[in-house]
């Protein structure tokens, strides 16, 4: 394995294969995230959800995809055509880019990654904040006042929550002392007789809660789905999109959910380490559980009003995150001397 990486051509072959594999896994994962969301929301409302197409409705997404793909690719009059088409591709590109640095443990000492960047998590933040461009540009270019309002809301919302999202992870970096995701997962403690990796949520529970709330807001999910807001804004930035361009936005949303869940798994739940469970299965289980939390939140809470959203972001989460960083710093200094 090491030899392949040292050979320049071999390295590129490995990277390209890894990217293709990751693309396939993510597309499938996003499709089944949609399926699972529909089923889980159904169960929360005591109905079965899609269960007709294929066993347990597993082929429902294929049917929907074919239907959407065959729709007319419609561009409304007097739109900014170039931006209108580019905006959804930005959404998808930004969603997939984050996976360039996310490592996955495949087996007990075999790990998988496309790029092992030593500031991986910063890269994820940088890329995930590109998502706001997709939404703002999509809303701006649609030549529709609802789309524009949705885009503006989204810009304000994403900027507000980006701060607490970043700060919520700072205590973790301070404890681990590295921004490389693999190092964070492998963070080892010596506590009494125990030596080994631990889920960092035990050390930074407040950070996890801030991260979770901010991540829901970052991915524009209920109860923070103000850019879409079907009741007031018809669909916000999505109003004028149909067919495959709509699919791109939809895909990006679900890939972002999986990314946020995977990141939480890596940073807070010890990644692929789970007792005796095989690493890849453990990683999968943790991600699915976190995706379920997203769906659970969506099935429970109503949408926040806009001023509530801003107040929560700036007056509650941001100060809490800053205090969390300061307190963690003090504790680290006290413990380590």
């Amino acid at each position, binding site marked *: 394995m090491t030899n392949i990486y040292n050979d320049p051509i071999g390295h590129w072959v490995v990277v390209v294969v890894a990217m293709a594999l990751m693309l396939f896994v993510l597309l499938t994962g996003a499709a089944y995230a949609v399926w699972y969301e529909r089923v*889980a929301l159904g*169960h*929360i*409302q*005591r*109905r*079965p959800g899609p269960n007709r197409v294929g066993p347990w409705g597993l082929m429902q997404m294929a049917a929907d995809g074919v239907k959407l793909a065959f729709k007319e690719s419609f561009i409304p009059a007097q739109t900014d055509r170039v931006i209108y088409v580019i905006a959804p591709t930005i959404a998808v590109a930004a969603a997939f880019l984050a996976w360039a640095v996310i490592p996955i443990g495949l087996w007990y000492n075999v790990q998988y990654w496309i790029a092992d960047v030593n500031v991986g998590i910063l890269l994820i933040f940088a890329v995930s904040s590109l998502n706001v461009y997709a939404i703002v540009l999509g809303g701006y270019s649609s030549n529709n006042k609802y789309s524009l309002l949705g885009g503006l809301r989204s810009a304000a919302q994403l900027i507000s929550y980006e701060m607490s999202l970043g700060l919520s992870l700072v205590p973790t970096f301070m404890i681990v002392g590295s921004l490389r995701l693999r190092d964070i997962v492998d963070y080892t403690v010596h506590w009494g007789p125990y030596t080994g990796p631990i889920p960092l949520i035990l050390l930074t529970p407040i950070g996890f809660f801030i991260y979770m709330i901010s991540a829901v807001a970052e991915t524009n999910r209920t109860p923070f789905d103000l850019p879409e807001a079907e009741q007031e804004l018809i669909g916000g930035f999505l109003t004028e999109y149909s067919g495959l361009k709509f699919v791109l936005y939809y895909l990006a949303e679900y890939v972002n959910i999986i990314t946020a869940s995977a990141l939480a798994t890596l940073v807070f739940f010890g990644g692929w380490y789970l007792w005796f469970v095989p690493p890849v299965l453990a990683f999968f289980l943790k991600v699915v559980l976190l995706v379920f939390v997203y769906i*659970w*939140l969506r*099935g*429970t*809470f109503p949408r926040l009003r806009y*001023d509530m959203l801003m*107040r929560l972001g700036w007056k509650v989460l941001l100060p809490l995150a800053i205090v969390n960083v300061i307190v963690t710093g003090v504790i680290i200094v006290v413990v380590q001397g």
Partner: protein
Amino acid sequence: MADEPKKPDGENPSVLGDIGALAKGLKTTLGEYFSPQVTLQYPEDKSPRSERYRGRHYLRRYDNGLERCIGCELCAAACPVGCILVIAAENTEEKRVSPGERYAKTYEINMLRCIFCGYCEDACPVQAIVLGPEYELSDTSREKFVYTKEKLLEPLPPDVQARLDARPHPNPPPRAGEGKT
């Protein structure tokens, strides 16, 4: 916050209380997640119909196979939308269709017009027409909705037949001799 509605007295807003409320909501939805579902898988399972449900019509026969309908056209007269067409003909010794003097040569119901009020069933003096439990009457052309006598004379579902047999007749049964020829 000036734009926030005031909370009712006796409820002291507190952060812990609010978080508790959120947790309670999450608990409720999680409980629902694991509760049995209420959905009926429709084409396979159907919700039970009332005994007196008014679905599609049936023309009944006596036990000996003779048609009950005597072609009196009272059903057509009672029909509020005029969807029943009855053309009567005389029974003869060679061709006896019903026990009475006349029988319905043509009996048609336009199901697109029918409002399923059941007045025809009430009007019929010999209990010839009844409304059965079927309600899935969709079809592919308008012509197919004009139910002819052949279709209406299809045997009733057995459970409906048994129920009708047990029901006391609101109208006098056919006079002795008329029912058996």
